[in-house]
C-alpha cells in the first residue's frame, strides 16, 4: 500500500508524518504537491498540520480551494482512506468532507501539550487495532481546535458513533480540565458517514517513539495498514 502526504504552502507536519510512516512504520510514502490533480496511485492520503496559507482569513479556508482538493473529493468518493490532522482536519471541515467547524480555543491561546484521547469506536478503519476505550497519549498543537457543530449534527455524530476520539484524563474520564480547547463533548476526532475520512486535532505523528514521550500514535497507522 502507499501513503500520500499533501503539502499546501505553509504545511509543516508533512515531514513528521513522513518520518513516522517511513522511518518508524516502514511504509511507502510520498509527498503530494497541492496542485496535483490525480491521487489514484495512493491508498491513504494525509492532510498534515501546519498553517496552510498562513491560516489567513480562517484556518483551512484558502487551502480548500487548492486543485488537489477536487481530486481528494473523487478519492474519498471511491471509499479510499483520508486522514486530516490538525490543519488537515480544519481543511476537511472547510471543504465539507467532514461536518462542523474548528473555532478558536476557548482559552484564546495556542496550546502545545500532551493530551489523552479515549478511543470511542474501535470498529473503524482508523482504530481497528485499538482496545475498546483505549486511552492514547498524543499531543496537540493548535490555536483553532475547538470542535463545534450545530445540535442536529452533534446528535447525529454521537448517534452514529462517529466521534472517534475524546479528550479525557489519563484514566479515560471525560472532564472539563482534560478538554484543552473547549471542544463540544470533548471531541478530538470524528469520521464521515462513510467511515473513510478521519479528522483529528491531536498529532499522532508526534507520538511515534517512546523517546519522544509516546508511541501511541502508531496504532492509528497500524489500523490503517491492517484495513487495506
Amino acid at each position, binding site marked *: 500500500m502507499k501513503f500520500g502526504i499533501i503539502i499546501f504552502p505553509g504545511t509543516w507536519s508533512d515531514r513528521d508524518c513522513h518520518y513516522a510512516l517511513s522511518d518508524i512504520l516502514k511504509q511507502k510514502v510520498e509527498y503530494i504537491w497541492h496542485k496535483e490533480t490525480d491521487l489514484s496511485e495512493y491508498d491513504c492520503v494525509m492532510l498534515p498540520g501546519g498553517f496552510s496559507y*498562513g491560516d489567513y482569513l480562517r484556518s483551512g479556508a484558502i487551502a480548500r480551494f487548492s486543485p488537489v482538493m477536487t481530486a481528494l473529493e473523487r478519492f474519498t468518493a471511491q471509499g479510499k482512506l483520508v486522514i486530516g490532522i490538525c490543519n488537515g482536519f480544519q481543511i476537511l471541515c472547510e471543504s465539507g468532507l467532514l461536518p462542523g467547524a474548528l473555532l478558536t480555543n476557548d482559552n484564546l491561546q*495556542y496550546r502545545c501539550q500532551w493530551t489523552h484521547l479515549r478511543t470511542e469506536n474501535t470498529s473503524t478503519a482508523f482504530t481497528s487495532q485499538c482496545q475498546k476505550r483505549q486511552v492514547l497519549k498524543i499531543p496537540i498543537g493548535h490555536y483553532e481546535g475547538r470542535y463545534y457543530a450545530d445540535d442536529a449534527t452533534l446528535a447525529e455524530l454521537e448517534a452514529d458513533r462517529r466521534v472517534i476520539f475524546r479528550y479525557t484524563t489519563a484514566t479515560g474520564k471525560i472532564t472539563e480540565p482534560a478538554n484543552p480547547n473547549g471542544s463540544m463533548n470533548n471531541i478530538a476526532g470524528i469520521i464521515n458517514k462513510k467511515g473513510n475520512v478521519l479528522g483529528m486535532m491531536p498529532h499522532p505523528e508526534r507520538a511515534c517513539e517512546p523517546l519522544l514521550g509516546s508511541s501511541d500514535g502508531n496504532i492509528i497507522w497500524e489500523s490503517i495498514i491492517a484495513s487495506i
Partner: protein
Amino acid sequence: MPVSKEILDEVALSQQEYQLIVEKLGREPSEVELGMFGSLWSEHCGYKHSKALLRQLPSRSKRVLVKPGEENAGAVDIGDELVVVMKIESHNHPSAIEPYQGAATGVGGIVRDIFTMGARPIALMNSLRFGPLTDAHNRYLFGGVVGGIAGYGNCLGIPDVGGEIYFADCYAGNPLVNAFCLGIARADKLVKARAKGEGNLLMLVGADTGRDGLHGASGLASRTFEEERELRSTVQVGNPFLEKLLIEACLELAETDWIAGMQDLGAAGLTSSAVESAARGGGGIEIDVLRVPRREKGMTPYEVMLSESQERMLVVVKKGYEGKVKALFDRWELRSDIIGCVTGDGIARILEGKKVVAEAPVNLLTSSPVYQRRVKKPEWLNRLQDFDANSIPDLSRKNANSTLLRLLASPNITSKRCVYRQYDHQVGDNTVVLPGSDAAVLRIKGTKKAISLTTDGNARYCYVNPYLGGIIAVAEAARNLTCSGAQPLALTNCLNFGNPEKDDVYYQLKDCIAGMARACRELKIPVISGNVSLYNETKGEAIYPTPVVAMVGLIEDVAKHCTSGFKNEGDLVFLLGDSQTIGSSIGSSEYLEVIHGITMGNPYIDLEMEIRLQHCCLEAISRGLIKSAHDCSDGGLAVALAESCLVNGLGFMSFNWKAEGRMDAALFGEAQSRIIVSVAPKSMWKLEKLADRYHIAATRLGTVGGKRLTLKGYIDLSLKQLGEAWWDGLEKLL
C-alpha cells in the same frame, strides 16, 4: 558645515564620524550614501563600541567551522557530516514600541540568519526581560511579546524549546527580547553569505519593499529613544507565512549549485545585506533601485536602500542560472527580481535607472570606527558589592515554609509553563526533553546523538558584579547542559547594555565581557556568534547589564540523556558540589531581593571547582549512575529540591541535613557549582567514589518518596502547596 545636526541625528552619526567620511570619500556624501554610512556604522551593524572588547572572547575549537562575523551565524561540527548553525539576536527596541510585531519579526530575523546558510532551522529559544507585572503596561508588553513569538514561530513549524524570562524594574521602559535559532545542515552544503564572482546576479526574493522599518539599525538599535509615537513606523510587520515559503524555497535552492551565495535582509535592509556580502566576497556590487519591487508609490532611493521590510532574501545567482532559480521561486509562489550584479571594482554603486545615487568603496562602508576607552570602576559599584549579610536578621525556622512558597511563586522562579505551552515545542519530531527542565534536548535523526540547548544570564549578578556575573552566565549555561548529559560545544551571546558612551555602562560592558571570556577559556567553550544591543535606557536610566548566553551541547547517545525531575521512590538524593554554606551566597540572590528588598552583595562562584563538578556530573550521567540532575541556581537548594519534586510529583524526605551557618544562606543562598542528583541505592557507592575522584563533595541529602517536601526541622510542605505556588505563580500575575 553643509549638514545639520538634525540630519546627523537622524542617521545616528557624530560630527567627527561625518568628517571622517568626508575625508575618506574626498567629498561630501550624497543623501543615500549618508544613510548607508549611518546604518553600517551604527552599533548594530558596525559594533563600534564593542568590537575591541569582543576580541577577548575565544572563538576557536576543533569543531568550529566559521569565524565570528564571517557568516550570518556560527557553525559547529557535530560529527556524522553534520553541522549545527546558531545565533541569538536582540529585538529589544522594536518590541518596546510594538511588542507583538517587534517580537514576531525578531523571530523572523533570526530564523533567516540560519536558513540563509543552508541549514534547516530545528529549534528556537527566547530570553526575555520585562518590568514587574504589577504594572499594566508591562503586562501589555509581556502579552504582546509572548503572543508575537507564538504567532510567528508556530506558523513556521519550528519548535520553541526553551528560554528564560526575568523581571526587574530596570526593564519597565525597555524590555529585552532576544531570539535564538539553531539549524542543522550537511557540512558540504553550507551556503556562504558572499557576493562573489564578477557578473553574477543579485536577486531579491520574497516580500516587496515598503517604508516600514526605516532607520531600524541606526535609529532604534543604536541609540536611546523616548518618543515612541514617532518611532512606530520604524517597526516592521511580519508575515510568517511568507517566511515559511522562503525557508522551503531557499533550502531547496541550497541543494543546487546554481548560486554563489545567499544573504538575508535584516537590520539596514538592502544596504547591509548587499554591502556586507560584497565585503565578504572581496568585490563590489551594483544595484538599480528601480528594479526593486515596491509596496508603495513614490519611494526614494534612500528609502529603498534602508527599508527593513521583512521576509526578503538576497540571492547571488551564478550567471546563466537565473531562469532556473526564478522557476524554483515561482513554484513556491515567491516573487523574485534581478536588481543588480556583482562587480569587481570594490565599489558599492547604487543607481536609480541611469543616475548614480551612491558610489562608495565597500571597504569604507564596512570599516566603521572602533572606539575603546579606559574607564574606572564606578564608586556606586563598590557600595553595591560591599554587603554584610549580618546586617539583616537570619531566617527563623517558623518562616522557612512561607519563604519557600513566596520564592516559588516569585515571577523569576515560578514555572513558565503558561508561556511555553503557547509555543509549539514538539513539531519536528525531535524534542526529547520539553521546556521546563534545565536544558532542552533534541535528538538528531539518523544518528544516536542529541543536542542540548539552554539560555542563561542572571542580570542581577551582573549589575552587582559585572565580572562575576559574566563568569556565572557562561558557567551556569554549561552546568545546565551538563545536567542534561551534554558536553558543551559552543555558545552564542547577546549583550544587552545601556549607552556605552557613558563611562559606567562601558565599564559594565568591559568587565562583563572579560568575565565571560575567562569562563569560556577555562571551560573551553568558544563563542561562535552573537549580537550586541546597546543604548537600552529609559529616561537616562540603563537596564541591568544583561549578557544572555545561549549554549549548545552534544549528547553522544540520546538514550543516556538526563532530566531534572526525581524518578523513583526510594532513590537517594545527593548534593554535588560544595556542601558548606557560604555565608556570602545570599549576595544578589532572589531571596535577598524578594524577602528583604535588597539587591546587593557579590554572587559566589569557584570556577575551578565548577569545572570539576561539571566533569564529574557528566561522567556520572554517561555511566548511567544517576537518574536526575538539577542545577541549584535561582532560589538555592530549597527551590531546586522543590522543582525536582514537582516535575514528576514525587516528594523528598531529608536524612539529617542541617543548616551550617546562616539558615537563609543554606536554604536559599545561590552559591554556584552545585547540582542535585538522585541515584538508585545500588549506585550510591559508585557515585561517591566518582565524586571523590573529582574532589567534589557529595552530600547525602535524603530520599525520594511520598507527597511532601520535608527538610526536617526546616521545611515541611505538601507537593500540592508547592505546586500551587510554582506551577501557577506566573499565571496569577497576568
